């Protein structure tokens, strides 16, 4: 028969206020198999823990029941107490009499009665608890970082500097992400390239980082510590080992393609590098723009290339990489504002979105840094419209956090580079970061006009053809403003990178309703996810500015390090196993398991479970008709016993 110790916690007054704890302890001592029952003010405190440890030794307890707060809170704490006292840590059961009893009732009678019933259930269950040993698996100490924006770069460098091997996967042909597109960064107006290109170069040179650009993740197998990630290397039609980046081929190429890097403002050659400081500085051929792929003749670049690096027959190749942890930093896109017909993006040439304006400012951009309209003229009046699609129930309810600040940056750059009058239509100026308010004041002093009213409509000016008119209400004066301008800049909502749904499916991440990846806990675990060993950093988790992104990248690198640092890892022991004598080979378990843990052993004619893949959800145990599968720690008899105990009083 088991020797059970019951320890009731007052949790100060939290429990004691609506549950008579001493009466509960006395009741516990009357239950069969309970040899010691005590109550104490703070069970989770050190004296509380010592009390349990001593009682375990003194009364030679083989089961412990702690009735206190939620198991999600202190189950780990009390498991360590048992472990230090020499008892298997799975022999403790936590009874939740705080969140689900004392805090949800005002009637002490009701609370005490319920606490007794729930405690009785735990006693029934405790009798059937068995010692479990956590499994130890070896951990591969490489890490994979998906997405090479500033977040991915930062995380890779931090990890590589600790000596870990990092696979950095980037979808585009160059790393750098959106930050590389900017000219300046707020609030310090540092040149974006000056602070980013050294890091990009460091990534290129670093011996521990394997850079895999123009690649996508196609398949993910395995589990924490032992991920097998298959990466598809999209065909570049250029052999980067031979090419030395002389870029002679890019001059001759007749092919014309829309430059994604310059947000479509200008065309670029079929064989191209996105921008001069691209890393790696090797061109790729855009299949849709290449004359050879379209019409079958040309191959000019092949003739020009001295190193015979062009290879039109190149195919997508797949490589599988073993890593211990994965950091997902896939970044963001701006919302397509074309559907918001009232702003006329795509209809009126004078309407730009934020990233296009970034390219206008950038010296490597289409206009070499000069701010000119699409017809080449310099704008006399510019209006920047905030919250286009953000903070809007009909599109995206979240605030994209950075648009106020980059709009201020735009105003400064417009004032610096042109003689135009600059207006900003805002609802609230959100300048909450370090140095942000000071930057906002500086911009006000630069005579930028702020109109407190969300831009309602952009229309062609009736009396000045070619100009635009921004209609809004200046809510401060209550007047309807019709502002004639030459250029309208929209600050669209930041949404997750296209393809992030696919990444979510591959890495088993859940997403919120706007598609941002869900962190395990918004406050306590913002960088880890529900899938063990998968971490997230940067805007893919939610909109944020560069300083926060870099901070998150370092955080994610640290969390990944905790896994890959040790070469062994202890896995949760509550997995499932098959009792071969009862298995009737119906293979239900094999069919239902989302992780493919159970497999059918043809020779023995029974199913078996690969405990490394098993996550302990217990689905197979309930699907098994002969109940041959034992879901450790939640076995059929334990659950049935607990139900019987709960229903007794």
């Amino acid at each position: 028969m088991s020797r059970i110790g019951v320890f009731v916690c007052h949790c100060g007054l939290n429990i004691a206020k609506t549950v008579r704890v001493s009466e509960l302890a006395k009741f516990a001592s009357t239950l069969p198999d309970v040899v010691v029952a005590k109550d104490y003010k703070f069970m989770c405190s050190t004296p509380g823990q010592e009390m349990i440890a001593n009682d375990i030794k003194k009364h030679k307890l083989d089961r412990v029941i702690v009735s206190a707060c939620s198991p999600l809170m202190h189950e780990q704490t009390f498991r360590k107490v048992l472990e230090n006292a020499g008892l298997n840590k799975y022999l403790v059961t936590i009874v939740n009499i705080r969140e689900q009893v004392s805090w949800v009732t005002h009637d002490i009678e009701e609370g005490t009665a319920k606490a007794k019933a729930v405690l009785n259930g735990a006693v029934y269950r405790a009798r059937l608890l068995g010692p479990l040993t956590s499994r130890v698996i070896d951990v591969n100490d490489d890490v994979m970082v998906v997405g090479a924006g500033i977040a991915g770069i930062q995380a890779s460098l931090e990890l590589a500097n600790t000596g870990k091997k990092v696979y950095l996967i980037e979808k585009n042909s160059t790393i750098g992400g959106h930050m590389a597109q900017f000219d300046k960064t707020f609030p310090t107006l540092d040149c974006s390239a000056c602070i980013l290109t050294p890091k990009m170069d460091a990534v290129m040179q670093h011996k521990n980082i394997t850079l895999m650009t123009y690649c996508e993740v196609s398949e993910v197998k395995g589990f924490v510590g032992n991920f097998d990630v298959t990466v598809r290397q999209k065909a570049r039609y250029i052999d980067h080992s031979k090419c030395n980046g002389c870029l002679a081929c890019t001059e001759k190429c007749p092919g014309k393609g829309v430059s994604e890097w310059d947000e479509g403002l200008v065309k670029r050659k079929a064989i191209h590098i996105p921008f001069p400081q691209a890393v790696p500085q090797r061109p790729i051929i855009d299949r849709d723009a290449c004359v050879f792929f379209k019409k079958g003749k040309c191959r000019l670049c092949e003739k020009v290339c001295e190193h015979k690096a062009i290879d039109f027959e190149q195919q997508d190749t797949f490589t599988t990489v073993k890593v211990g942890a994965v950091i997902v930093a896939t970044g963001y896109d701006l919302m397509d504002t074309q559907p918001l017909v009232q702003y006329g993006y795509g209809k009126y040439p004078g309407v730009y979105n934020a990233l296009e304006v970034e390219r206008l400012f950038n010296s490597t951009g289409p206009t070499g840094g000069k701010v000119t309209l699409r017809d080449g003229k310099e704008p006399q009046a510019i209006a920047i419209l905030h919250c286009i699609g953000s903070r809007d129930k009909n599109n995206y309810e979240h605030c994209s956090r950075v648009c106020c600040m980059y709009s201020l940056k735009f105003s400064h750059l417009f004032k610096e580079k042109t003689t135009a009058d600059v207006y900003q239509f805002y609802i609230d100026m959100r300048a909450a970061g370090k140095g942000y308010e000071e930057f906002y004041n500086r911009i006000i002093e630069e005579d930028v006009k702020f109109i407190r009213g969300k831009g309602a409509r952009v229309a062609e000016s009736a009396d000045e053809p070619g100009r635009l008119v921004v209609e809004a209400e200046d809510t401060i004066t209550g007047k309807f403003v019709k502002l004639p301008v030459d250029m309208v800049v929209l600050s669209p909502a930041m949404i997750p990178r296209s393809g992030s749904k696919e990444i979510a499916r591959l890495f088993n991440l859940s997403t919120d309703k706007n598609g941002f990846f869900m962190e395990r806990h918004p406050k306590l675990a913002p960088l880890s996810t529900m899938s063990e060993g998968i971490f997230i950093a940067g805007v893919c988790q939610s909109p944020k500015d560069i300083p926060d992104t870099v901070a998150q990248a370092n955080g994610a690198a640290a969390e990944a390090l905790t896994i890959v640092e040790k070469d062994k890892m202890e896995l949760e022991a509550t997995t499932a196993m098959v009792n071969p004598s009862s298995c009737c080979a119906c293979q239900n378990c094999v069919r239902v398991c989302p992780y493919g843990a159970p497999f059918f052993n043809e020779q023995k004619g029974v199913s078996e479970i690969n405990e490394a893949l098993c996550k302990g959800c217990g689905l197979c145990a309930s699907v098994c008709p002969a109940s041959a599968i034992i879901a450790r720690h939640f076995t059929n008899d334990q659950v049935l016993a607990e139900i019987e105990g709960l229903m007794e009083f």
Partner: protein
Amino acid sequence: MSQTVTPYLEMSRAIVEAGGEALKKCYQCGTCTGTCPWTPITHFNIRKLVRFGQLGLDGIEDYMWGCSTCKFCVDRCPRGVELIDVVTAIRNVYSGGGMLPQSLRAFVGSMSARGNPWSGEQSKRNDWAKDKYPLYTQDTKYLFWTCCTVCYDPRNIKLAKAAAEVLNLAGLNWGMPSVDVNCCGESVRKVGDLELFERLKQNNLNYFNTHKVDKIITVSPHCLATFKKEYGENYDVLHLSQLIDKLIKEKKLSPKKNFGGLKVTYHDPCYLGRHSGVYDAPRDILKAIPGIDFVEMGRNREQSMCCGGGGGGLWMEKLKGERLSDLRIEEAMATGATVLATSCPYCITMFEDSTRTLNVDEQIKIKDVTELFLESLGVNMEELMASAADLNFTCKMD
């Protein structure tokens, strides 16, 4: 008067009780006023109306009556505030205290006394039909709901006749309601007199139930939107243009007469477009009529500008220069069209007035899509419409 105010929240709570619950969600971003067609031309400011409502400040009266419930602001509001409900609630709370503007008193008086806004004799409601058209009985399939405007307003009687003819030509089993029905109550409700609206609605519902009505056709988008939103789920309501569009596509009726390049533009009535989501049916009808050179206005479909007739606007006096219908007529003429087609009796009335006040009624004609369609079916419109002249149903001022 002093510039200090103290919030009087009881008033705000009264507004919330009267259905303006969304008042609380507004964060005063100004999108609604930026979008509202009235802001540029009148001192009506929907955002201020909501602000006064939020804090229950007095002085709200000047802002209460400018809204024509065109739903432009509701579609754009980033907080999803149902501004029309807020306006209706505010009007209900304040009009209760007898604050109704002078021009609306007659309209509401006629509504409660005769069940129609036009001071028309209740018994003469079907006189427009001259007993040529069938009455609805229990086993008739479609109820052709005659909006008060098409019963009593001479111009819109033509629309009623045209609609009746089209239904006959389509060979549908239809009938019009007897005289003991009354207005669907849309304008009364938007003016804030919710109690009167309930009475009118109940009367109509009794008629519907006793006659086992389930399929309703109407020419007035106001009736369409009200039946769908306020009269409960169990009625299948269609606007006449939707029915005609279906008939054309099923080849049951096909327009024959060629209009020889007549330039026509189309105005989306707010209650047909934004309120009920019907944009394409009237356009497809116009495109199906041979010889019509169809041209779109700048502000069309979801962006269409209101004619000013909704929310009691039809009966309100508006100063010159503060009439949306005038601006809309100018916009229509800017397209070079000689015919402005629409599909709502309210819009037709407003536009007819505007063409007269701007005396451009020679350059641009106002037609309902149904009238154009009927003409294209080869019906001689003049003799059909001639008999409308001798009707007199305006009752003596009793």
